[in-house]
């Protein structure tokens, strides 16, 4: 299959973005990641519901309030609660931590959406074909497992003439279901092993069916991702992108290195999007 952007380029992209996001805790970087994350959300035809926004606000709200309750670090004391100092810095830390969490979650959703099982296989590639094979079998087994569990639950209820009443009964039923699942999984494994043997597994040195080829775009974008990542790191090493919370909140965004680092991260987050072909490919997969 001819693909525009190779799975490994995608993988590199997500790793770089998420690593920076989780290491730097810088509000400007967070805003950039939020903006680009929401753009991806749109491109991937996901719907942003009130539930999503509520969940994000709830995480931020709870963590912002919770942090001062367990941490009294920080110099600006707002008031005392049960003899404990509640500080502006602790509130800010909670807020920042929650924001990093929300942004990381957002990017993880995008990652799981873009990285289909096929793409994971290609990331594993020829060298790690065993990992790839295990992955594809796990991807097949999980839905099968939950489907079978549902069937077993129904089968047991059908036998006993209804669903269990009371905690003790429910516990006994769940125990039986677990036993049933265990036997089924083992049996499933045996038959699958036979089926694999029947289809030539172990007959020769195994190859890896590589469906994707590296094109100029895949290599070019991968190089650009690496360069942008290097630029962010260089900026940070040279004193840029510093966000200090304790003892005082001090966010740097005025030096040359801050500007270079933020610009590089902005570029990194938007890199695959700058190509219409990437967007078209992703949207076609979801049509």
């Amino acid at each position, binding site marked *: 299959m001819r693909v525009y952007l190779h799975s490994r380029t995608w993988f590199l992209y997500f790793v770089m973005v998420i690593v920076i996001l989780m290491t730097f805790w810088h509000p400007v970087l967070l805003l950039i990641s939020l903006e680009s994350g929401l753009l991806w959300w749109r491109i991937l035809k996901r719907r942003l519901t009130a539930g999503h926004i509520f969940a994000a606000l709830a995480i931020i709200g709870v963590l912002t309030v919770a942090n001062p309750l367990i941490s009294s670090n920080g110099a600006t004391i707002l008031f005392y609660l049960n003899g404990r100092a509640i500080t502006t810095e602790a509130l800010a830390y909670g807020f920042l931590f929650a924001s990093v969490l929300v942004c990381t979650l957002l990017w993880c959703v995008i990652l799981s959406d873009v990285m289909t099982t096929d793409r994971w296989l290609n990331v594993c590639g020829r060298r790690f074909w065993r990992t790839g094979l295990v992955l594809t079998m796990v991807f097949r087994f999980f839905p099968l497992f939950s489907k079978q569990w549902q069937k077993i639950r129904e089968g047991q209820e*059908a036998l006993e003439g209804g*669903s269990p009443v009371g905690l003790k009964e429910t516990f006994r039923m769940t125990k039986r279901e677990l036993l049933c699942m265990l036997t089924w999984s083992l049996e499933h494994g045996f038959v*699958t092993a036979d089926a*694999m043997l029947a*289809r030539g597994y*172990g007959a020769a040195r195994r190859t890896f*069916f590589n469906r994707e080829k590296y094109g100029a775009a895949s290599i070019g974008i991968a190089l650009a991702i690496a360069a942008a990542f290097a630029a962010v790191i260089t900026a940070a090493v040279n004193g840029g992108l510093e966000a200090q919370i304790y003892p005082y909140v001090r966010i740097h965004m005025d030096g040359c290195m801050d500007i270079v680092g933020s610009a590089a991260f902005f570029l990194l987050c938007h890199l695959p999007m700058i190509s219409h072909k990437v967007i078209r490919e992703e949207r076609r997969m979801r049509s």
Partner: protein
Amino acid sequence: MIQVENMSFTYSGAARPSLSDISLKIAPGEFVLLCGPTGCGKSTLLRMLKPELTPAGERTGRVVYKDREIGTEDRLPEIGFVMQMPEQQVVTDRVWHELAFSLENLGVTSDVIRRRSAEIAAYFDLEKSFEKDTNALSGGEKQQLVVASTMIMGCKVLLLDEPTSQLDPIAANRFFLWLEQLRREFGITIVLAEHHLEEIYGETDRVIYMDNGRIQAQGKPAQVAHDLLVGGDAFSAALPTVSRLFYDGKSGRDPFVSLREAKAAPDYENLVAAAKVKIAGRERVSAPAEAGTAVSLSNVNFGYDESSPAVLNKLSLDIPAGACTAIVGGNGSGKSTLLKVIAGIVPDKKYGAGKVKILGETRAVTEKKKKTTAGARQKIAFLMQDVSTLFTEETVYEEIVSGVKEKVAAGGEGFVENFLRENGFAALTDHFKQHPYDLSGGEQQMLGLTKLLLRDPQILLLDEPTKGMDAVAKEEFAALIAKKKANGMTIILVTHDLDFAELCADYAAMLFRGEILSKERADRFFADNVFYTTHKNRALNL
């Protein structure tokens, strides 16, 4: 192509041999049917022909493939092997990868895999599902995918071990038609072990009948049918309906093996008249007198997901007590859902309206039924399609007594054995120490039914109970249903197996697009239908 010489085989630890002195030759392009009662050794014989899957045990004699003796160490991708369970044979999560998997194993390069998988997908009509998740395929589609990904290895011989036993009869027929096409177009050699012979029997070149690990008869299908009918072998019940219906044993003519052949006979009309006389005495006199209504549904709507259409639509149905009612209909007509609604086994995600009345107790269709309180007689027991979902114990005996230990203890010594004998499940007594999963499909059904019947339900719901049963077991099962009815049990049977439905149902109802279109006496129902009817009625329709 394949030659087996004086082969005997005993599984390690087994007392008796599973195969005794087997000799046979299979020519290139031949379509061979291996048949025989459950446990006759046909699966073991097939596994002897595929070295990768040969079980551990003591083997004498030899197997020769293309003039070369093969041992258990050999790897022969040219010989394809397809098993019963479609679900368990699919290894990967994508259709394309399933095809590629076989070739990856053989060390084929990506370019060749790309071309061959495209080629095979085009031929097997898998283009549309090429990128699909394998979990989204139906049982029949999965089994076709398994064959396609076996064929992709360039196999010359296809061994199939009851490939349709987990499929409904319609999917099974489609699978056979497709197999026949494969043979016609590619001339591959097929050896098929099967107990459902109705459609495929007449299409094969040679039939090998096995019993007790030995080949008892082999030859052209008509010749073997003749031997079985003349010998009065119990297995002759598995022969196609036309073979049994029109055979008189006097005319010296071999039995017919397909409906086409029977209809082409010059004296077909006379044969039909004679057959009608022959079966007239055997027909059921009348349905039992109605003893009230056991289950009643009125204006029931039911669906699983708000965004998808309802599965049951304004359905109204009364099920008479003490009788057997068959509910028939195509795939997806809502048959299994109807049984689940009656049994009160409904998922969390559902919607619906209407009420179900069971033995005087009314419940909303969307309400889950709670277990009967201890001491009271269980109202409903339901045998679902996948009977293995009932098995939790290590041995067959423990499985039988699990959940009913008090009853078994109260029954005294020999209670279980007597119970099995009374219900025609005596065959299970030989397997008490085995694991339930080691039983054959038909025996697993027996075990499931035993568990259900030990709970002494007033209403028994059966969803495709004959799946995996051979013809003899089906006849015994029909007799059991008659006996339970006589004892006042109400039975609701959902099935695609119309011959079986006619054999044991008093009433038949047709479900179409979630609605009951008609309910009438079973004999009238099947006699009136032209397409949706039994093989017997098809043969007798002039």
